[in-house]
């Protein structure tokens, strides 16, 4: 996957413009008045934020275009705007870290949160660290035990109800 800073900035700018417009429209759809009895109403701040997000999103697109144009004029071949910002290792980290975290949310009501986290830790260590399965399981179980002692025993946090596990 290749994504340059220039492309990323443009995408972010467009998302900003769209998000800002959506915030303003939803403000009106939800009937949040801009002012009420001559004072700022519940829609005042959100609508200002929406407008500002859209404006700064548009400014980012303009700023990126100007920077790219300047880099082209100065013949800066190594301009950081064209550098690929996503590398393979980070993308793998992203997929497995976010994937494991989502797995914890899904599995918590079934096998318990601490158990799910222990499994997620073991999976991440096995896949991302390329360690042995035994080592991954030991660290996963150890982490689960520490979390149990800190959060369940010491802080008394009630864990989500689950069919089995902690």
């Amino acid at each position, binding site marked *: 996957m290749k*994504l340059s*800073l220039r492309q*990323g*900035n443009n995408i*972010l700018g467009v998302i*900003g413009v769209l*998000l800002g417009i959506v*915030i303003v429209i*939803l403000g009106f759809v*939800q009937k*949040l008045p801009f002012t*009420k009895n001559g*004072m*700022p*109403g*519940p*829609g005042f*701040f*959100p609508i200002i*934020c929406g407008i*500002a*997000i859209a404006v*700064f*999103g548009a*400014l*980012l697109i303009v*700023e990126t275009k100007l920077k790219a144009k300047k880099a082209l004029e100065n013949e800066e071949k190594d301009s950081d705007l064209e550098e690929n*910002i996503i590398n393979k*290792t*980070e993308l793998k*980290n*992203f997929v497995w*870290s*976010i994937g*494991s*975290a*989502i797995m*914890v*949310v899904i599995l*918590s*009501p079934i096998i318990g*949160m*601490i158990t799910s*986290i*222990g499994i*997620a*830790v073991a999976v*991440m*260590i096995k896949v*991302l*660290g390329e360690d042995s399965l035994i080592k991954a399981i030991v*660290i996963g179980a150890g*982490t689960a035990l520490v*979390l149990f002692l*800190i*959060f369940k025993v010491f*802080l008394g*946090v*009630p864990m*989500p109800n689950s069919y089995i596990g902690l």
Partner: protein
Amino acid sequence: MENLFENLAMGFSILQNPVVLLYALSGVLAGVIIGALPGLGPSVGIAVLLPLTYGMDAAAGIILLSGIYYGAMYGGSITSILINTPGDSAAIMTALDGYPLTQKGQAGKALGMAAYASVIGGTISVVAFMLLAPVISSYALAFGSSEYFALMILGLTSIAGMTGDSPSKGFLAVFTGLFISLIGLDLVTGAQRYVFGNVNLYSGIDFIPVAMGLFGIAEIISVNSGGEINIDKESIKIKNLFPNKQEWKDCGPHIGRGTALGFFIGMLPGAGATIASFLSYSMAKKTSKKGDKFGTGLLEGVAAPESANNAASMGAMVPMLTLGVPGSGATAIMMGALMMLGITPGPSFFIKEAEVAWTLVASMYIGNVFLLLLGILGLPLFVRILKIKAPTLNAIVLAFILIGSYALENSLFTVGVTIFFGAVGYFLKKLKVPAAPTVLGIVLGYLTESNLRQALIIADGSFLGVITKPITAVILILAVLLSFGTPITEMIKRRIVKKPAA
């Protein structure tokens, strides 16, 4: 002055409680460890370990968090010196001379000097903090809602204008944070704002899961394995951590200047420890007799930035605690944490919460002693931790983040929010969008809105009446000027970075 010592004595008397002392020690230890991990700085440390303060009393909570803060500030220098990978941006300048010292077999001396400079800078700054904070608070007591509104705007614009590489991105981030803070029930009119019938959103989105995602998850995804640690064990033995008389003589003035510079720069919203260490290094290079040898492995090049960045971390506490305006990501998270613990920082903090305030001041002195002890005695432990593979550490940090965000409201929805902001935060990080303005926007959003509303009620609905009050107007003009902070700071950085390379 008599009052000052009485208050300080009160603070120390509370610290006699071994449990509170243990919190200070644990905070500093955890901070040094987190700060030492490549890429993870004070903001991440505080965000990840925040759940440990749940259920604590306010004094213990803030002592733990501030210990993490200045512990992490020092911890960042360990990786800078040993593997040329700064733990956070404030430790970049330390690597310029610290790593060459390691290559020369003098890692112990560099690490020792980093610890001494950090502790001296930190301790002198605590004295300055102690003298200055109550005075600023007493002046700020006269502030009304319009001045507060202006202060919030100052905090938001300066952090948006001075962090990251583009003001557009900074402001995009700050307004997104402000918008997130408005989701939920409007406390004045009771209107549902952007809730869409989801009961989890009625009470709004707390800043903690967002900070944990943006700072914690996003950072660990982008942290790759650091460099190989290959140091001579002999060089980090305790006896080799002490600089000799001549080295003290050479470094002393730089530590003094770095401390003064760091403290005052730290107080400026948005400037922070990174700029302080850049400027301190540059000043040391200009004023040293060995200026031309900077970058080749000089202890002076370690002492100057390290004293400045720890002094700046203390300086940054001044506006946060006295005015309720945090100037950095780390202090924004700390302010949110204080509010979670039932304390609102601001001008009345030193009056209404005198016990907490002075216990905090006293803990800063003790914390610096702990920092020195840990910096010397704990070094073999920190080196061992650095040898653990990055994926193993990342998995364990992620585990803490997930359970910590759950423990906030005992809700899996909050965990989902953290994961969402972690995923989004990673891409924003790659696009060089700073996370601190978003978090500050969430922390200050409600306060900004409610102060503006109150100010308008007092001014009979006249917005002009609000912004033309003298103090309000001055603060707002300053806010506009600081919006253009990025071009100025980038120019300073470019000038300083060019020079060491030259």
